[in-house]
């Protein structure tokens, strides 16, 4: 069966400085990273992918292609790039939905549970809803049991083992596993192979620009006030304050 992992790239936070006084975000270096939770999602998928086809999917430009080549070097069997930059959770879901339809089947869809930049946490639930599939959120570990997927996920009262019938959507928590290192030879080969990445245009997906009109719009940046330090008090003083 097909296991699909959706990868997103985010700006490297080390290349950004925030100046609250000037109310400005400065981009010091144009550097992109594979979203950390997506690395964990890919690792979780790789551990169960042995007898299946693992397909990495990304939308965007050169950084997205780079993420897909990383995924191939790590062991993804196929990689699909849609060379479109979409920022909004709804349009992203629409495009992803079409990619899945185009693929024919994707019994298990795996995503990172959070994204370093916008972190709307909407894509996975929207996608599950659009596909009318069950969703397991923030799993720490996933296991395939022939027709179901099992995820151990943290909830308010502790860890729960959740089970969903396939086809399903699962999100994987950041830092829930230790991503493997790609073998150096695989890196050389996957970055050199012209056919390591398959490309799907909007036309291939049966989409037009009108289908991808964002529903959110950007109105500017706001900077919450810096948190002030509390005061350090002794035990006696603390008791006095509390008794006031």
């Amino acid at each position, binding site marked *: 069966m097909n296991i699909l992992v959706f990868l997103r790239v985010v700006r490297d936070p080390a290349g950004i400085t925030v100046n609250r006084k000037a109310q400005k975000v400065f981009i010091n270096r144009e550097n992109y990273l594979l979203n950390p939770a997506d690395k964990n999602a890919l690792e979780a998928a790789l551990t169960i992918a042995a007898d299946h086809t693992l397909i990495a999917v990304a939308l965007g430009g050169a950084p997205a292609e*780079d993420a897909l*080549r*990383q995924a191939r*070097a790590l062991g993804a069997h196929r990689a699909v790039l849609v060379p479109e930059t979409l920022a909004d959770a709804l349009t992203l879901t629409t495009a992803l939905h079409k990619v899945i339809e185009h693929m024919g089947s994707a019994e298990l869809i795996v995503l990172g549970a959070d994204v370093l930049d916008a972190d709307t946490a909407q894509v996975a639930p929207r996608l599950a809803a659009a596909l009318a599939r069950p969703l397991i959120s923030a799993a720490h570990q996933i296991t395939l049991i022939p027709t179901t997927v099992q995820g151990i996920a943290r909830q308010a009262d502790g860890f729960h083992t959740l089970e969903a019938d396939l086809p399903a959507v699962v999100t994987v928590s950041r830092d829930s596993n230790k991503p493997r*290192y*790609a*073998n*150096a*030879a*695989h*890196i*050389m*080969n996957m*970055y*050199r192979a012209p056919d390591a990445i398959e490309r799907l245009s909007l036309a291939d997906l049966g989409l037009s620009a009108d289908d991808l009109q964002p529903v959110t719009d950007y109105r500017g940046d706001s900077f919450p006030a810096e948190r002030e330090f509390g005061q350090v008090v002794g035990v006696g003083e603390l008791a006095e304050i509390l008794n006031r």
Partner: protein
Amino acid sequence: MDFTFSPEHIALRRMIREFCEEELRPRAKTLDREGRPDPEVLRLMGEAGFFGVPFSQDYGGMGAGETGYCILMEELNRVCPSTATIIGAHIGIAAMSMYLDGSPAIKQKYLPDICAGKKIAAFGLTEPNAGSDAAGIQLRATLEGDSYFLDGQKMWITNGPLADVIMVLAVTDPALGARGGATVFVVEKEWSGFKPGKPEKKMGLHGSPTSVLNFDEVRVPKDNIVGQTGLGFVTFMKTLDIGRVSLGAATIGGSQAALDASLRWVKHRTQFGRPIANMQSIQFMLADMAAEIEALRSLVYRTAWLVDTGRPFVKEAGICKLLGSETASRCIDRAVQIHGALGLSRDYHLERGWRDARIGEIFEGTNEIQRIVIASELLQEVGVRIRP
């Protein structure tokens, strides 16, 4: 001119850097203190393909060329010079000598395991009486039937106590000596009569074991000759020529680590009421470090490009090693100076960096030998032949 790294080399560096930060940095201090390598880190490096980075995939290598290998050495030496030295001896000289001149059969036999890190390799050239004068080797190989018997001693051999396979230069014809009478043999550690000595106690590189190797009537089948009988000295000298490029790359890592540590420190250390970053005396040291590192980086990766594109590189390689080792020593010394007493503390990493850097001016041809190599190349260009 195009000075950009290829996407695959950028991705390779990213993987190696992540590995070094996650796996190597937390262990580097312990390796130095305990004075031995960590088998777990070597195993993980084997899985990631570190042991065969420059070699062709036909022999189990990673196909990343000299440029890829320089990236590996730079990144390893930025974090743990001991581990970089294990890899440097394994790939840069030991496996390289087989890769350059070995027959396809011997390469098929040994290189896949060497590239996978299943077998660690060592390069046996130096002897008690043959250091800079490498042609003065005495370890004797005597032919009896279809085998040679090796007798003698090698000294200061990096990876000596670790190595599974050892490339050994031995005298097969004493009348000719090194010039036509020395041959490279591959010796396996299990063979009777071979015995590595105890790890030497050194000033630096504590995590990279160095020892003597004793050969007492070690029988080596003729098939285990690398290259042609009698031409082993040429093989080893060619190997050292190419090895100097990656040694230069390693020194970029050491120098950069010194600069990075200094930049972090000067922002926070306050004296005379302001961060020492504001002092011109400190700024000058930072600027000198940055200038030397930038020049070195350009030199080393250009030389790697010369190697990868099949151009002559011997003079440039000598310059990489000479300039690199001296740059690293100067940069780390400046970093110690900037850090004051903290630079000398054994709880901080600069003291280790300072001890680890010094060997750069000595091993794989002292810097005096490098000057001779560079001068002989220069003079050859104007028609004067000198023999070092």
